């Protein structure tokens, strides 16, 4: 099991992991408050200023899975994987325009989740439930994939086991994570994010300086990758093939629309001290996009370094083992593994808040006190994480990958209810619900391929393919618009236009 362990790398890895474990438990005392209150446990008391938010949101959105999967796609087919860069350029204007408004209204009305806002805006419990279930179902596989990212680097340390023992380190790491998230709530990932992000910046900067020196410069790296892709043929290449352009664009747009709809994005952003902190972050967070773009290029560096792996997700870990001393590879792997902890914690908190506030409270136990909400949310965060662990232990990884792909498509379907709802009262809640249902069904149906679930589908017979999330949300919006015009005016929720007015940031 540990005969082939790379000891220097493993020791560095374990030291950093132990450090963040201590931080995770210590976080309970940070900005001390009553963690038995869901506002404090699940939203950090909305006390994260611009700098803490920058670390937390950055650590939350740019997940370990992303850091493994994006360069893996670039390694496998080249330019297409780079869609992550235009995608992360599109998200920040959207963040700047929409989330300060959402923060203002959620703070005034004491909301914690996207579904809280939807109920307040439209007064429709079923639309609230649809938004809540979409978020929870889409988040579960996403947490599971963080574990995949973590397991890749544990394998790269040289750990091999049989049967359930193969997952022993992962299980241990995840149980520790579950315990300190239970205790410290959102404060734990916020504190760990400082360490994680600092480590990621260090390894990326080291990689983009040192690897090209070893491999003969960037020109040589791209030329070497070009040769590998030319030999491989098919869709692979340094630039996009004609048929890849429309999927590339629509995938970037659709992913950008979906990202901030996820409960973990909401939780991360709403925990900021105010609209000012969010606007500053819309300006400063692109630093992470640059890092992601550079990590994507590591997929090409792997070709130049002659790395050949069966599973493209092993390319970057193997690149680091080949290019750096073992202790630094261990440092990098620790950064990626810790990078899984932050989003996994925030995702489980976001899903737990949503389940408590928008499924359990309205439909099962209407009379819950905030302290009872916190008890249930803490328990749910444990269940959600154990569920994700069970998926990794007992179900083929492909299942989580497929669900994650579908999750993105489902997530976009709540975009109209939330984003349009921030600016206009014209949409009818039943029209939005009909659009959501149609978008979800059609998006899922389009993705059903003969042998596998696929993210893109041809559009009529125009000769192009587009991302199913985007195709289905266009249908969703069309239905919502037409039905809103046809249906009679309805009684609205409790939110009035003045609730969106800018508040000062909290001290």
């Amino acid at each position, binding site marked *: 099991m540990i005969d082939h362990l790379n000891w220097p790398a493993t020791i560095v890895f374990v030291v950093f992991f132990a450090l963040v474990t201590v931080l995770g438990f210590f976080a309970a005392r940070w900005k001390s408050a009553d963690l038995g209150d869901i506002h404090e446990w699940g939203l950090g008391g909305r006390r994260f200023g611009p700098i803490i938010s920058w670390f937390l949101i950055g650590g939350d959105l740019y997940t370990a899975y992303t850091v493994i999967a994006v360069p893996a796609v670039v390694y496998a087919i080249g330019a297409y994987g780079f869609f992550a*860069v235009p995608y992360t*350029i599109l998200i920040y204007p959207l963040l*700047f325009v929409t989330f300060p408004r959402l923060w203002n209204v959620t703070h005034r009305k004491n909301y914690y989740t996207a579904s809280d806002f939807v109920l307040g805006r439209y007064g429709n419990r079923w639309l609230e439930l649809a938004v809540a279930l979409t978020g929870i179902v889409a988040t579960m596989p996403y947490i599971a994939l963080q574990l995949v990212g973590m397991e890749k680097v544990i394998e790269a340390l040289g750990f091999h086991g049989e049967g359930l023992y193969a997952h022993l380190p992962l299980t241990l790491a995840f149980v520790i994570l579950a315990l300190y998230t239970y205790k410290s709530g959102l404060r734990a990932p916020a504190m760990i994010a400082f360490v994680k992000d600092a480590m990621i910046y260090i390894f990326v900067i080291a990689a983009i300086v040192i690897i090209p020196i070893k491999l003969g410069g960037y020109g040589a*790296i791209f030329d070497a990758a070009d040769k590998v892709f030319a030999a491989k043929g098919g869709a692979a290449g*340094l630039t996009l093939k004609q048929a890849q352009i429309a999927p590339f*664009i629509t995938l970037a747009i659709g992913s950008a629309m979906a990202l901030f709809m996820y409960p973990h994005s909401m939780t991360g952003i709403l925990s900021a001290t105010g609209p000012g902190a969010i606007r500053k972050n819309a*300006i400063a967070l692109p630093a992470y996009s640059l890092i992601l773009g550079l990590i994507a290029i590591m997929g090409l560096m792997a070709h130049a370094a002659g790395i050949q792996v069966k599973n493209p997700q092993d390319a970057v870990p193997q690149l680091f083992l080949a290019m750096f001393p073992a202790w630094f590879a261990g440092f990098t792997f620790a950064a990626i593994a810790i990078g899984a902890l932050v989003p996994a914690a925030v995702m489980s908190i976001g899903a737990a808040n949503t389940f408590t506030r928008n499924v359990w409270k309205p439909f099962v136990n209407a009379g819950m006190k905030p302290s009872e909400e916190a008890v249930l949310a803490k328990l749910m965060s444990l269940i959600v994480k154990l569920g994700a662990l069970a998926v990794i232990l007992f179900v083929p990884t492909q299942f989580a990958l497929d669900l994650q792909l579908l999750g993105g498509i489902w997530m976009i379907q709540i975009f109209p209810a939330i984003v349009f709802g921030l600016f206009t009262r014209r949409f009818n809640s039943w029209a939005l619900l009909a659009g959501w249902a149609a978008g979800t069904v059609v998006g899922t149906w389009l993705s059903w391929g003969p042998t596998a679930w696929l993210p893109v589908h041809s559009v009529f017979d125009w000769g192009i393919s587009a991302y199913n999330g985007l195709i289905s949300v266009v249908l969703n919006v069309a239905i919502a618009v037409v039905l809103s015009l046809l249906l009679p005016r309805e009684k609205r929720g409790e939110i009035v236009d003045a609730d969106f007015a800018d508040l000062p940031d909290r001290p």
Partner: protein
Amino acid sequence: MRYLLLILPSIAAIWTPFYNSVEPRLFGVPFFYWFLLALVPVSSVFIYLFARLDRP
């Protein structure tokens, strides 16, 4: 008009046929890659300018 500051970098980001080429290279990096990487800080500056105009 000031909303153009938010829209222009986004349009550039998805104007894929424009940047889908290897040449001109910069320090050996194909245009496709360096254009998109350079666009990231540019978009950030544009959002900053928008924020300045939005809140004098």
